[in-house]
């Protein structure tokens, strides 16, 4: 066992060293994944967030939605009023000028989440690193959180499920929403939608950027420092983890 651990440790260290190769000051070959050891709890030193560049998001492209469905075992949306949707594409048009844009909308991972405020059982909660989740072991399916969410981000599972991804347990009678692919993030990965968006964007990168808002050196923190980004319904003062550029 200890042999295994040390081997793993060695591999991780060498991978990190390789990823940390600096091409130019401030530009790394690959961003070092901020993977925490499995036995350590998440801390508030990290605040996970996402930046969506609506100027690059194509109308009609649904790669992020498909990737989310595949990763989290969501079935095809045939009944939009009741089927679970963790992320959805929205097309907007300003009537006066005709300016149109497209963007993905999902749980905004608020710092002050209304869904947590209203939850009567404590099932809806915010993790120390800013990811808002539903603990299905405690959820009683009252759906108060669905009503409280200004972003229509949550879904209720109406029917029994059988084809769950082992890492994403889901079941009838509970409310659920985007988890920022917490099972991937905890292992140093990125959400499935971000990965799919980057792949769809070819070599140019995607419209979605995921990272640690608290780390001043992270790509997302640098970007939001440089360009004007918007929180949807900023008037609610919820301090969102997901920001949009170009709306």
């Amino acid at each position: 066992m200890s042999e295994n651990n040390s081997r793993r440790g060695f591999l991780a260290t060498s991978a990190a060293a390789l990823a940390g190769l600096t091409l130019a000051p401030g530009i790394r070959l690959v961003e070092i994944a901020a993977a925490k050891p499995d036995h350590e709890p998440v801390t508030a030193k990290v605040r996970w967030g996402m930046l969506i560049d609506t100027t690059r998001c194509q109308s009609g492209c649904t790669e992020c939605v498909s990737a989310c469905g595949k990763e989290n075992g969501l079935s095809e949306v045939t009944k939009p009023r009741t089927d679970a949707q963790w992320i959805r594409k929205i097309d907007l048009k300003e009537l006066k000028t005709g300016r149109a844009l497209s963007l993905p909308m999902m749980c905004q991972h608020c710092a002050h989440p209304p869904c947590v405020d209203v939850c009567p059982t404590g099932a809806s909660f915010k993790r120390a690193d800013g990811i808002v989740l539903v603990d299905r072991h405690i959820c009683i399916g009252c759906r108060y959180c669905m009503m409280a969410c200004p972003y229509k981000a949550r879904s209720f599972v109406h029917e029994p499920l059988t084809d769950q991804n082992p890492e994403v347990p889901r079941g009838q009678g509970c409310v659920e929403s985007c988890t920022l692919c917490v099972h991937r993030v905890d292992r140093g990965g990125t959400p499935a939608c971000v990965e799919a968006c980057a792949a769809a964007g070819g070599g140019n990168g995607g419209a979605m950027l995921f990272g640690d808002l608290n780390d001043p050196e992270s790509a997302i923190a640098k970007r939001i420092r440089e360009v004007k980004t918007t929180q949807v319904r900023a008037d609610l003062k919820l301090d969102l983890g997901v920001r949009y550029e170009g709306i």
Partner: protein
Amino acid sequence: MVAREIVGAASAAQGRLKPALRLLAAVALVGLAGFAGAEPGRTPKPSITIEKPGQCVEPTDVMRRDHMKLLRHQRDKTMHEGIRTKNHSLNECIACHASQKTGSVLGKDGFCQSCHDYAAVKPDCWDCHQPKPGLKAATGVKP
């Protein structure tokens, strides 16, 4: 019936003997009950098949008695603190204990179900958790 007669007789006799006789009667009753229980075929026995022999994460007696406590503790740690160690993780239990025939811990001879059926305990893990290891959902979403 026999026991009541004995106790009745005992109460007629000296008070000092009463507790001893009561104990005797109780032992006799338990013996009878034990005999009834031993009748073959009345009670289905759990079929516990260990397909991957080796040491479990805890000693067998601890696992038999306390596996639910370990799972519950780990569940809260994982859900709320993002601790994803493998030792007491449900997915790791499933990965090791799933039947090679059905690929699941459920089913008549499934590691989890056969014993819980015997103990008349219905765990609700499977309302949400996947009883087959390594399954990747094949469904893709089309908006």
